[in-house]
């Protein structure tokens, strides 16, 4: 039998609005498989997003879902988790939503180590609004607002998450489809803030402007630049030039925020 994705999708919602070849659909399929692996119950799971093409994802999912304000996914998700710590909370959105306007909420969710899983779809651009540069647009590449090439250095989302205090951080790409669900599932099972960065492709607002002939070319590039962490350990700095590390980049156990908060309440009420 073919994989039953439909059971996780709201009836009548397909076809989705994403452009031909947009990587967000590949990520959504990975998320569905990961949620199946973890056996998540619909009523006990919330999926939260901000605004952007990537942030349209929860609208298709037959779970408790919130489509909030631009950049505010982590803030709303924090609210849900504080009120209902027993719920599995999943955030998703784009690089623009999560690291530009929403950068502050993102780093503070990492700092608190609140138990949620944040799937961030990094297509290097503001896709929805016509291709303005994001904090993840690589230096030299073109956006509608950087027609001569982007002069800025990038945020490395995974490094940002590790630096800010997330306790599970992993990266993969939309080419590595089966790794998407494995890493998201591991993130869901991890207690604490999990960040899964998925490099994916926006052929419409990024690819065309940067002279990729097709989305298949963009996917082949993802295949070429990805280096699994274990392989990277044996490579020189020169060999790693222009590559991105994939797999589990960081994992540690640390006190989780809602647990600490419950303890605080018990202590104060007991006193």
């Amino acid at each position, binding site marked *: 039998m073919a994989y039953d994705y439909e059971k996780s999708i709201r009836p009548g919602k397909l076809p989705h609005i*994403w452009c*031909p*070849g947009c990587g967000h659909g590949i990520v959504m399929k990975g998320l569905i498989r990961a949620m199946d692996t973890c056996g998540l119950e619909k009523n006990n799971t919330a999926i939260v997003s901000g605004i952007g093409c990537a942030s349209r994802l929860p609208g298709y999912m037959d779970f408790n879902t919130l489509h909030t304000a631009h950049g505010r996914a982590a803030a709303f998700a924090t609210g849900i988790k504080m009120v209902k710590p027993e719920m599995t909370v999943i955030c998703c959105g784009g690089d623009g939503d999560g690291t530009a306007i929403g950068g502050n909420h993102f780093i503070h969710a990492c700092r608190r180590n609140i138990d949620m899983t944040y799937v961030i779809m990094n297509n290097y651009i503001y896709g929805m609004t016509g291709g303005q540069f994001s904090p993840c647009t690589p230096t030299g590449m073109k956006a509608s607002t950087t027609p001569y090439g982007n002069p800025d250095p990038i945020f490395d989302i995974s490094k940002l998450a590790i630096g800010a205090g997330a306790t599970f951080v992993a990266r993969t790409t939309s080419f590595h489809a089966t790794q998407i669900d494995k890493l998201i599932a591991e993130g869901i099972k991890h207690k604490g803030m999990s960040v899964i960065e998925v490099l994916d492709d926006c052929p419409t607002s990024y690819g065309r402007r940067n002279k990729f002939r097709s989305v298949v070319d963009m996917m082949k590039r993802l295949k070429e630049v990805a280096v699994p962490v274990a392989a990277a350990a044996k490579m020189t700095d020169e060999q790693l030039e222009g590559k991105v590390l994939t797999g589990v980049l960081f994992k540690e156990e640390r006190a989780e925020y809602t647990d600490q908060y419950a303890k605080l309440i018990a202590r104060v009420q007991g006193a």
Partner: protein
Amino acid sequence: MSAKAEIEIIEEYCKGCSICVEFCPTKVLEMDAFVVKVANADACIACNQCELRCPDFAIKVHKL
């Protein structure tokens, strides 16, 4: 050679991105204007690459 799977294409969902065509190892699929079609059914080895990679939930691999 006989097909190892039956390929179902949901034409209303297919956006013709050609990802499945490109990643099918045995060239089972082909573009037909804006929608993909099965051109060489017998060559299917049921590897599932097309279903796994389709961003649009538009292709299903039913193993035989």
